[in-house]
């Protein structure tokens, strides 16, 4: 039987199948960070186990790190304690650790690919649901819980039932101002926040073929927001070009050997998926969300739908709009905003900063807007400076912060105050996600930039022409 890309990678990592149970699934690469790993190390030690393959686990600090004055001791005692625990656990068990201040430090899903740890055909897990990002390289990558982090540390395996397969095809030409983030938010709005639960998604079609690796990462990153365990894209020349020469990719003969394997990683022409969807690129506008889950999104020029026209219960829908202080029928364009957040594992890469700068160049930040621009890693910071984007940012009245997860989940001090409205390039608009009482509109870096200079929700196309 013809295989899907997903089948090929999954099946080659099954150590054994448990009768009427999950697969014993081997993990090639394991990322850990300070928030979801400490209890796993405690469990490991209390059972008297050790880390079986320390070279397959990679630690980086990102979730609760400050994004200013990283050279100073971390002021928040609890955060400092977690960062300290990560460093100590990594040292004790021989795991590489990119702590605060390390040149390789940054958001786990940015630094993994950047350093060539992420590879096609690999299985990659992390105690973080946005691990799906790494699927952009043709890897099977997904988020796990802390019990599973302990399993990987102590056995290099987890026990997982194989998800069903879904293919999402998007073909055609994307319009002006339509970015990978918009493609993802469009798909999620069609699938709803739970439509892909139980599935692993392959993204296919010329829209993804033509997309940069950064864009593919943005799309795969957001797979979890429609409930999918992960999403992946078949590796191609662009993938190999991105990876070649990065610090941890195979070199020389090992690279050639790896390439032979990687070139087999695609879905066969007659491969069967459990379910398949087709979307037309021409239907996709710059997107924005208006509610409290990422499925509540629409074209930025549209008005908030009436309850009877959306899937799900009316009460939940009204609760959501009530939290946002929005009403059915409201237009999003022109809504006054308070904050803009550019960053996160979704949109904290160089391409996102280029997009943001393409709009703010020669313009000024609106006075009513507080903007937090947080690169995904030190390497992204270096690239921003190398390209002179830092000057554009500065001249437009914005400030570049230091890398980390920041206001995406507001574990550090970067919290949107209660009631304030933020246009954010991150991944979740859940109640209080960016700080207690905060209200989030998810959008692309272009929409964020246009809104930042106008002070209200703005269609970036009006500034691009």
């Amino acid at each position, binding site marked *: 039987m013809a295989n899907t890309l997903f089948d090929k990678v999954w099946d080659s990592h099954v*150590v*054994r199948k*448990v*009768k009427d*149970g*999950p697969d014993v699934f*081997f993990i090639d690469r394991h990322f850990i960070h300070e*928030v*979801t790993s*400490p*209890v796993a190390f*405690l*469990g490991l030690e209390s059972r008297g*186990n050790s880390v079986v*393959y320390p070279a397959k686990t990679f630690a980086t600090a990102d*979730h609760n790190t400050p994004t200013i004055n990283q050279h100073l001791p971390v002021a*928040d005692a*609890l955060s400092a*304690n*977690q960062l300290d625990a990560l460093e100590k656990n990594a040292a004790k068990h021989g795991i590489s650790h990119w702590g605060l201040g390390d040149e390789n430090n940054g958001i786990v899903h940015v630094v993994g690919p950047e350093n060539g740890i992420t590879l096609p055909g*690999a299985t990659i897990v992390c*105690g*973080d*649901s946005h*691990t799906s990002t790494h699927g952009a390289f043709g890897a099977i990558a997904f*988020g*796990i*819980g*802390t*019990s*599973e982090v*302990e*399993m990987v540390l*102590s*056995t*290099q*395996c987890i026990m*997982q039932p194989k*998800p069903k397969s879904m293919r999402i095809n998007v073909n055609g030409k994307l319009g002006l101002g339509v970015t990978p983030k918009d493609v993802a938010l469009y798909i999620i709005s069609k699938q709803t*926040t*739970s439509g892909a*639960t139980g599935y692993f998604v392959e993204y296919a079609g010329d829209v993804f073929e033509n997309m940069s690796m950064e864009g593919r990462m943005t799309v795969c990153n957001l797979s979890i927001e429609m*409930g999918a*365990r992960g999403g992946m894209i078949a590796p191609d020349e662009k993938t190999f070009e991105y990876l070649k020469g990065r610090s941890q990719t195979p070199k020389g003969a*090992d690279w050639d050997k*790896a390439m032979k394997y990687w070139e087999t990683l695609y879905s066969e022409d007659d491969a069967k998926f459990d379910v398949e969807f087709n979307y037309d690129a021409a239907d996709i506008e710059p997107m924005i969300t208006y509610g409290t*889950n990422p499925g509540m999104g629409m074209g930025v020029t549209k008005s908030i739908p009436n309850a009877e026209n959306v899937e*799900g*219960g009316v*009460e*939940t829908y009204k*609760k959501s709009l009530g939290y946002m202080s929005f009403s059915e029928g409201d237009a999003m364009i022109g809504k006054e905003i308070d904050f803009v957040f550019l960053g996160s594992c979704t949109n904290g890469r160089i391409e996102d900063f280029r997009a943001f700068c393409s709009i703010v160049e020669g313009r000024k930040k609106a006075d009513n807007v507080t903007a937090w621009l947080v690169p995904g890693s030190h390497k992204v910071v270096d690239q921003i400076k190398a390209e002179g984007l830092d000057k554009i940012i500065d001249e437009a009245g914005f400030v570049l912060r230091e890398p980390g997860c920041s206001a995406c*989940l*507001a574990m550090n001090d970067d919290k949107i105050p209660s009631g304030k409205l933020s246009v954010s390039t991150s991944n*979740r608009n*859940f*109640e*209080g*996600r960016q700080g*207690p009482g905060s209200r989030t509109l998810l959008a692309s870096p272009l929409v964020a930039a246009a809104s930042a200079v106008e002070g209200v929700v703005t269609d970036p196309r009006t500034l691009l022409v």
Partner: protein
Amino acid sequence: MAYDKFNVLTSTAYPLPTENVDTDQIIPARFLKATERKDFDINFFRDWRFEQDGTPKPDFPLNKEIYAGSKILVGGRNFGSGSSREHAAWSVYDFGLRCVISSAFADIFKNNCLNVGVLPVQVSPEFADTLFDAIMADPKTEIKVDLPNQTVTLVATGQSESFDINSYKKDNMLNGFDDIDYLKNIENEISAFAETRPF
């Protein structure tokens, strides 16, 4: 032994019919800073249970005295979406709950529950409505969750539905076993497999 065994549980239940309850609601990120697993009940549904000044919100079901001590929560569709934080499952457990019933669960939350000894029971949307209606009509409604027979039953009326769980996980829950016990017992098989991996 990572958690208590689960066999048959009969209890009243907290009703929480809101759909798409994400793990940021179950436990907000700012309460994930512990390095030990303890006391996660304190901030369970923090921002839905309490005002920002710490005053309890009396109308929230988890604060209602009439449901106090329930070991079951009946949640709306797509319960536990979003972040993979196992802290959400820990907070469910630490709050005294051993079972969550919903017409649909997010995958990672469901896995996390099974790994910490909370039984996720998926029922049909119709049966979920039946349960909500029964609890609304009588807050003292008892629900019996029978893991050996894989059934969930309204004690008063006998209305019942069966639920799915694979036999491996069922056996784990019945005996309080966990995956690490299993995996450590096939260590040699795993290390032989590891030798075959190209990178």
